[in-house]
């Protein structure tokens, strides 16, 4: 009988081109996503006078530098940003790769566009020059972020040298409570295992709470694997996954669909498969979460308070916490619901899919934003879907801004920024110092919690706000 294998091992084995004696393995890459920030990879490729080996497997969409208040490249006022988007289009043309430009009706954040167009599929290997590439693992793929040199390497060879990461399983059992979403699950996981808890590992999220998530929730969980240090995050494909993939533009059709489906059903980890590391959480005890510091591991339930560094015994940890609180302008012991916010951002590759916008809209409906609130759909397809459902109207009636798709205020590269000292409730993935603008103070939350902070002017427990509604 064959050795029992984890899903990760099955995915890894299926992509081995060759393995050296020292364990270095040349892996084949089935899909390569790139974006406007991948220009350094193109520059390197051109400097080496090389071609893209498999333009048919390479897909580009502008997202990082794309302003969210314009509809075409010509309208971009900042010459540098315009040049960067023009450069991506020119590189796509020059190398013959797929390009979802602003005039395609398919543009958006790479990690939103990939799955919704069926570029991402179960059973594939996928890379992108962006650390949040683990998102795609939610479909049962082996997906990970890479640097610019590696982007150039994949362009030229369609392969990457890798050492096999260890396998980790995070089991979340039980039923999630009312008002708790995928974002709260992943924040609770990072809070438990730390920002380096999954370093060197490919993480499989499993358990009934994970299986109970819709695809959007699963993508949110896998998206933030990098915030726990993990190389890749993944979830076993099931009927939810297959129903999501079927009929999408680049998904296999007819006979090929049937063949793919029978292969995908073999992907889940074997019962007896061994993981190098395991973590367990009780999903029923997870509350809506809010971060208080400058690392995603600095997280508490919304019912909690800012912690006291004096209670931390390790001196480096204490100093790191003290610096974080000083930067964040917070006093130990302050209840999170007493912390006022200046801006709210609902968007990013973590939380800008249709289901995320529905969760936010349910809270915003018939209420008023108390602070400036940006709602940035993850793609044109999400935007159209939301508008067809009238979600845009709910947001604008509440006084929120309804924008064009892009990374926006998650990374602050397109002009959407916090001012120094401003505090945000943000559905993005990083609360790092200066991430959303110099001196900006970011608190990470899920989409419903962001909307709750917007209509309250401070952090609020969405469960209380939504009591009696569903």
């Amino acid at each position, binding site marked *: 009988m064959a050795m029992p294998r984890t899903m990760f091992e099955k995915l890894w084995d299926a992509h081995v081109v060759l393995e050296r004696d020292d364990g270095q393995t040349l892996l084949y890459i089935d899909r390569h996503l790139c974006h406007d920030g991948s220009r350094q990879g193109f520059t390197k490729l051109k400097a080496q006078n090389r071609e893209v080996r498999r333009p048919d497997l390479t897909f580009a969409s502008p997202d990082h530098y794309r302003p969210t208040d314009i509809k075409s490249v010509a309208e971009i006022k900042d010459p540098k940003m315009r040049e960067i988007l023009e450069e991506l289009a020119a590189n796509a043309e020059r190398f013959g790769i797929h390009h979802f430009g602003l005039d395609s009706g398919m543009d958006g954040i790479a990690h939103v566009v990939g799955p919704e167009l069926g570029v991402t599929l179960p059973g594939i290997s996928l890379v992108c020059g962006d650390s949040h590439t683990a998102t795609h693992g939610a479909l049962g793929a082996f997906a990970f972020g890479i640097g610019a040199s590696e982007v150039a390497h994949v362009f030229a*060879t369609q392969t990457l040298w890798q050492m096999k990461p260890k396998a980790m399983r995070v089991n979340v059992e039980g039923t999630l409570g009312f008002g708790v979403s995928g974002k709260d699950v992943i924040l609770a996981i990072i809070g438990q295992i730390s920002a*380096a808890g999954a370093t060197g590992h490919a993480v499989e999220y499993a358990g009934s709470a994970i299986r109970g998530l819709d695809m959007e929730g699963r993508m949110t969980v896998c998206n933030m694997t990098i915030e726990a240090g993990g190389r890749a995050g993944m979830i076993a494909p099931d009927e939810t996954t297959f129903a999501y993939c079927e009929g999408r533009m680049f998904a296999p059709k007819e006979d090929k669909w049937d063949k793919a489906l029978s292969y995908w059903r073999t992907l889940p980890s074997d019962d007896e498969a061994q993981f190098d590391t395991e973590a367990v959480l009780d999903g029923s005890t997870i509350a809506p979460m809010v971060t208080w510091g400058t690392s995603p591991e600095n997280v508490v339930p919304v019912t909690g308070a800012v912690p006291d560094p004096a209670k931390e015994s390790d001196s480096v940890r204490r100093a790191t916490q003290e610096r974080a609180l000083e930067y964040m302008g917070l006093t130990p012991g302050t209840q999170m619901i007493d912390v006022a916010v200046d801006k709210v951002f609902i968007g990013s590759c973590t939380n800008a899919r249709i289901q995320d916008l529905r969760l936010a809209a349910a809270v915003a409906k018939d209420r008023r934003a108390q602070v400036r609130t940006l709602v940035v759909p993850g793609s044109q397809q999400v935007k159209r879907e939301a508008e067809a459902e009238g979600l845009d109207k709910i947001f604008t009636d509440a006084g929120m801004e309804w924008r064009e798709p892009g990374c926006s205020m998650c990374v602050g590269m397109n002009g959407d920024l916090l001012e120094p000292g401003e505090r945000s409730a943000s559905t993005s993935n990083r609360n790092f110092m200066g991430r959303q603008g110099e001196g900006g103070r970011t608190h990470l939350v899920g989409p419903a919690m962001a909307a709750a902070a917007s209509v309250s002017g401070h952090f609020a427990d969405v469960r209380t706000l939504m009591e009696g509604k569903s």
Partner: protein
Amino acid sequence: MEAFKTWTAKAAPIDAANVDTDQIIPAPFLSRIRTEGYEGLLFYRVRRNADGSMNPDFILNQDIFKDAGILVADRNFGCGSSRENAAWTLWDNGIRSVIAPSFGDIHYNNEMNNGMVPVRLSAEICADMRKQLHANPGAQITVDLENNVVVAPDGTQHTFEIPEFNRYRLLNGLDDVSFTLESENEISAYEGKRRDEADWLY
């Protein structure tokens, strides 16, 4: 890529966990192309006060550490964004090696792909070396890749592990694309097999 054999330089202690790549090089500088250079941009925001003036408490602002060529950090150095600009910024500001208990996986590879040597040593050894560097500011550390050894300021030798493949490439300054293309036959064979066995991909 420049070859790396052994590097002896003044080392600076970075007493913080989770030093993310946004701290090493903030997003507004990412549109600079490689040849524009990143000199003077290392830890651009972290080393400044809110009013833009330099924070004298930040270690690399202190005269004795300004020309440090090695950093000794705490766990999870280079976590976060995949920006290779972080490795370029370290390089352009004279840093050839970072020693830490653990690294963000992507940044770890980015350093090696740019001729730098990221060294993993235990949290205790790193803490002890940072202590030595505080006690003797300006002390030097040697990172010897030929022998996989770090020589601490007090002369203690610590062996470290680094993937053999990367070590070979670093020692010889090899471009990995040409190296990979020596396996063209294997890559083509895999592509043929994949097309047959997983035609649903295409």
